[in-house]
């Protein structure tokens, strides 16, 4: 795996299953996300500058900042990478089956995925949300358990960050859990104990970065985070008139599947895409470049 920020941004794919999925959600957050790839290209886009010497200075400073572990950027990148556990082979196999612009989700592809039980899916959704909160604080420098600051910042989310949240609501909320996904997640969180959390594989990957001390404290932190963000999520769903049917119609822009296979669609997207890592890398690069230009 690449270690430098410029390689990570240079290696972002221009087109794969993740970008196809994100593009299919474009009309939910119109024009917010553009798949900007390549480090120098990102510097040009973010700063609006094209002087090569200036671009070099900005890029060099960004590289320095990223590599200083005390600055939190590497931890944020690790979180975005780790919370997305992707089966790359499945993505490749799916693309190989493409007919025209669509991937038929039938037969062999479906047998390779197993839908998450509701409880595990509700936990995954909550943990991804907490990862966003912690990564936001690592990148922007607000103390790690400042839920209030994060909720305030959510209303200012735009670009690839807003697209990431839209995708979270759609493919980790509405599609696998249905229209009352917020209630399901909340009742799951209030009904489980530290032992249940410890047996969740997503939690196990990222637990060291979740504030709260012991597992009980971390579970409380996840619950509090979810509580404070659910208002934003339900407003988002209401303002965009989102429901599983609408999201399904969007996804059918690149996937072909029958309506009674929603849980398989969710599992397939979960396994074959890495939208958290992809858009997280873009968010991190943008914030890093914005700071680097200010400091040179």
């Amino acid at each position: 795996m690449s270690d430098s920020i410029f390689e990570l941004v240079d290696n972002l794919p221009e087109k794969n299953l993740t970008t196809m999925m994100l593009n299919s959600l474009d009309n939910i957050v119109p024009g917010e996300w553009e798949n900007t790839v390549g480090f120098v290209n990102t510097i040009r886009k973010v700063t609006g500058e094209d002087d090569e010497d200036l671009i070099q200075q900005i890029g060099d400073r960004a590289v320095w900042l990223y590599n200083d572990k005390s600055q939190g950027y590497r931890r944020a990148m690790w979180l975005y990478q780790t919370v997305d556990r992707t089966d790359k082979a499945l993505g490749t196999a799916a693309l190989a089956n493409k007919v025209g612009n669509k991937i038929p989700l039938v037969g062999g592809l479906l047998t390779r995925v197993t839908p998450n039980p509701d409880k595990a899916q509700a936990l995954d959704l909550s943990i991804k949300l907490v990862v966003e909160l912690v990564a936001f604080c690592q990148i922007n420098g607000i103390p790690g358990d400042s839920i209030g600051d994060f909720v305030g910042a959510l209303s200012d989310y735009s670009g690839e960050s807003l697209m990431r949240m839209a995708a979270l609501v759609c493919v980790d909320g509405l599609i696998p859990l249905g229209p009352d996904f917020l209630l399901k997640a909340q009742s799951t969180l209030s009904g489980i104990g530290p032992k249940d959390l410890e047996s969740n594989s997503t939690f196990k990957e990222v637990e060291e970065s979740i504030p709260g001390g012991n597992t009980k404290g971390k579970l409380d932190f996840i619950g509090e985070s979810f509580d404070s963000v659910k208002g934003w999520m339900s407003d988002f769903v209401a303002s965009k008139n989102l429901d599983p049917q609408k999201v399904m119609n969007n996804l059918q822009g690149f996937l072909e599947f029958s309506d009674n296979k929603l849980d398989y669609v969710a599992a397939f997207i979960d396994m074959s895409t890495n939208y958290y890592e992809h858009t997280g890398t873009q968010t991190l690069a943008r914030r890093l470049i914005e700071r680097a230009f200010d400091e040179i």
Partner: protein
Amino acid sequence: MIGLRKFLVAFFLTSCLLLTSCAQQAPSRFDGAQQESTSKGATAVVDNSQSGGSFNRYFPDSGNGYDRIYSQEKKGFAQAKLKKDGQEIAILSISDVLNNTITVDKYQSSTDKINGFPAVAQGSTATAVLVGDRYQVKIRSKDSSFSESDREEWLGKFDLRGLSKLK
């Protein structure tokens, strides 16, 4: 026969090595920075730079249709967005040059001043002042409606004098 087989295996393994090394990343113009910044003891931020939070009070306030929204706060650095009618028009920042001392060099040839402090234009979007030889205050346009003279005017709205006394 065994010799040939050994040779073929060795040849195959060498080819694999060559192929994988060719598949490595091409050299980058940022390799130098990568190497230096990952060498032992290298840091981008020094311990004795000011806390980012100590800069907040020197930023211009929201008002008259403008919103100032703080966006980043790190050691030696604070940044805010300037919005008008919900649209981001500029980025405002204060940074401690102790974190990146080379940045003061560009002020040596500066002839412009804002509120008595040396000022420079950078690229086509940025204008900055150096305050008390220690803090860089910078404004970058995010929309073409926010011109160089807007940047100069807004730099004057920071409490530059107060900042120059921050120890």
